[in-house]
């Protein structure tokens, strides 16, 4: 797979042409910024490979008192919009949930191993981990919903021509909505895979737990049955003598049975708890699946999405223009000093 890098040649030309061009004033560089706070950085490269979604405001502005020549290298950087913070939070939550999943797997494995204790702490640990993960996923889901809730409502505003406030932010939001929904989709996919992972782990754990408890009970009950039948076959002659021993044995069996019952109870409680969390997750999954793209369908095609974006933007633009026309008409009619639509 051959490629050719022309960057060096390009830089050579660029530097040569730079020296020929007249130096531009610093005001020219600040004219390119859009809405929002702006930071001037005098540097040739803003690459900081460690940051993924970090808002650029945390970078230290490096202002020097260099000569005019440096102002040509100045770049105005707009802050990314606020929703980037939200999406970063969701991503961090997903990451944390992944770590907890790994812990949960270990806890599952430990609980399933035969142990001498009654394994109560293991169960508790598993429960708490599952709960935490579910909470994280829920929180992320809520944040995700907030992200997309903000978006579509502004979209529908533009579409339904509601208020002039929407007008002002409308132009801003059409473009903003698109990358937002894309970010949503990718995070939603992550969340969905995470939830599915969790569910799969839970179901395997459940299965194995059930196997274990049934296995134990089955054995014991069998033993008990055998034990009691053998009791019945005893000679009646030794009734008196065996009475005490019988009593002791019966008491022991009873205690045994009672313990077994308690264990079964405990196991079914655990099962119930896990099943509840399974249900919760099912609910989350359903909500998430709305956001996720189906692979291999037309929605997954890049050219289809470009067409859609183009038509949405066009429509939005048309609505804006219509609203503009109407707005002006209103102004003229009432002679009010309404704010100029964008």
């Amino acid at each position: 797979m051959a490629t050719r890098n022309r960057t060096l040649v390009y830089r050579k030309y660029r530097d040569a042409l730079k020296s020929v061009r007249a130096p531009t004033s610093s005001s020219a560089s600040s004219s390119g910024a859009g809405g929002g706070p702006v930071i001037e950085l005098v540097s040739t490269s803003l690459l900081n490979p460690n940051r993924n979604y970090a808002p650029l405001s945390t970078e230290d502005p490096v202002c020097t008192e260099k000569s005019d020549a440096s102002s040509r290298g100045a770049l105005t950087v707009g802050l990314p919009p606020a929703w980037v913070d939200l999406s970063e939070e969701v991503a961090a939550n997903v990451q944390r949930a992944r770590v907890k999943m790994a812990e949960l797997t270990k806890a599952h494995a430990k609980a399933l191993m035969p142990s001498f204790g009654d394994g109560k702490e293991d169960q508790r640990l598993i429960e708490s981990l599952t709960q935490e993960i579910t909470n994280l996923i829920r929180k992320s889901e809520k944040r995700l919903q907030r992200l997309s809730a903000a978006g579509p409502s502004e979209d529908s505003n533009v579409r339904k021509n509601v208020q002039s406030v929407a007008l002002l932010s409308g132009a801003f939001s059409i473009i903003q909505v698109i990358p937002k929904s894309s970010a949503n989709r990718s995070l939603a996919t992550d969340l969905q895979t995470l939830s599915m992972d969790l569910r799969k782990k839970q179901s395997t754990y459940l299965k194995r737990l059930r196997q274990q408890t049934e296995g134990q009970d089955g054995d014991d009950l069998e033993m008990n049955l055998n034990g009691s039948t053998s009791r019945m076959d005893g000679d009646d002659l030794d009734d008196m003598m065996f009475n005490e021993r019988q009593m002791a044995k019966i008491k022991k069996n009873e205690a045994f049975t009672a313990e077994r019952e308690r264990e079964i109870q405990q196991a079914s409680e655990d099962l119930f708890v896990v099943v509840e969390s399974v249900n919760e997750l099912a609910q989350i999954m359903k909500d998430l699946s709305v956001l996720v793209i189906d692979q291999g369908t037309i929605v997954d095609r890049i050219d289809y999405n470009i067409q859609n974006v183009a038509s949405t933007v066009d429509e939005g633009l048309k609505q804006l223009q219509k609203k503009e026309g109407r707005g002006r008409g209103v102004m003229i009619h009432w002679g009010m000093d309404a704010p100029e639509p964008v």
Partner: protein
Amino acid sequence: MVLVSAVRDYLSRMLQDISGMKVLILDSHTVSTVSVAYSQSELLQKEVFLVELVDSISKSRESMSHLKAVYFLAPTSENIQYLRRHLVAPRFGEYHLFFSNILKDTQIHILADSDEHEVVQQLQEFYADFVATDPYHFTLNVPSNHMYMLPAVVDHSNLQCFCDRVVDGIAAVFLALKRRPVIRYQRTSDIAKRIAQETAKLMYQQESGLFDFRRTEISPLLLVIDRRDDPVTPLLNQWTYQAMVHELIGIQDNKVDLQNIGKFPKDQQEVVLSSEQDAFFKKNMYENFGDIGMNIKQLVDEFQQISKSNQNIQTIEDMAKFVDNYPEYRKMHGNVSKHVALVTEMSKLVEERKLMVVSQTEQELACNGGQVAAFEAVTNLLNNESVSDIDRLRLVMLYALRYEKESPVQLMQLFNKLSSKSRKYKPGLVQFLLKQAGVDKRTGDLFGNRDFLNIARNMARGLKGVENVYTQHQPLLFQTMESISKGRLRDVDYPFVGNHFQQGRPQDVVIFIVGGTTYEESRCVALQNAMNTGIRFILGGSVILNSKRFLKDLEEAQRLALRTEGKTYPINLEAKIYSSSHPPSDKNRREEPIFLLTKPDIRRS
């Protein structure tokens, strides 16, 4: 496989080194290239949150400097102009420019000049300048494909554009494969010769450094041939799945547009037919219609079973299992409904146009002899009212191609009948086809009636009977590939360019058909490759043809050819120019006459 994976590798490399949120900006060419190889969800995984076209981006003025822009464009002058405007007023924080083919120095100059803000971080050439629709099949989607039929005198500059585009596309394919081939071309075709020679010049002289790859023992072979050597294949009706969908409905960049055909639910109006993403399609794309019907029925049965079990949810476990399997279930549902919709639609069309009868005659014309029987059959079908105009035209063309020299009187009769029956038929089109692709112009033995060996083979085949009347035709390409495999491609018919030479058989062969390929031919290539003979064939063309497209190219070429000869000069135009020499009266005071006079290029060819 190799072409698709080359495009995917290029894209991954473009995106992986750039961290943070990205915007991908494409143009109308690269959109096709990227869409068939990469999906939207994969882009999202690489943090590309917006995809735009370079020409539409100018409408919005919003600055998004927290995004990094990755441009992937073809190095045309238009794109350079768009880029200039973008660089002068940059919207994004960083600009990474990638071009799909070789840049000229002047273009780099222009870009460097407009990059006042120094936002461009890198400028590279990634040679993904072709659309890899199938594992062994690519196309270049050349817009004015009909140019190949016209001699250079008609429209010199447009023909040069066509040749340049084709040469660049072929060069990109070999750069992606990292090989430099030995080039052969079809002797009887001027345009094939021209393209072969210009490609050789590019690879061995102009950019010999770029193409200087590690030389293997046996160089690959590039064979440039002309569509007109086999005009029969694009005219035939098809009965294997992929070819049939393209013939009856139309596939563009692996997408099928069902909007104009009938009433479909919103999410089925456009569907994707890609062997990479659809396992059922991959298994069935080369099967014939009857078998597809059975396989689809099987698929539907399987699906119904699963939905029945899904409805039977009693316990919580069942619920959990259902939710687990839901994404796959939904995908399967979409897939099944897509295939069912396509097959239903095609069955309907076959019924309407009586294609079973028409196609049988077509196949007879293409494969078997018997002029008298053929004439009778064609005449009957021409008289049949339910046969559509385009089918009538195809039948007459196939007859003409086969029995050009035998019984010209009957041929004339057919022409007359065709003109009288079809209102939209442009007279002279069949004759134009014969002029372009008649028996004198063809190199290959299209009907197997030149070579004694071929005649014998045909007779044997006729006696043996065929397993399916509708798919008995084999494109000429099959014979060409056989000759290459046996090392018996005649130098007389397919000479080498310049002093190229090749001993023995090549292991990699790229066959480029100037004028377009068909899905029947790509099926032929795929089946040949599946036989693992040790030679890998890749097929490419300027477009992917079906009969409609081929006929359109013919009509367009005929129109241009006639215009040069001054035969179709409209009369009212003359009158207007005549009247403009007199001062326009007040009654019809219009600006038009003067406007017309200032358009002299209509006269000039």
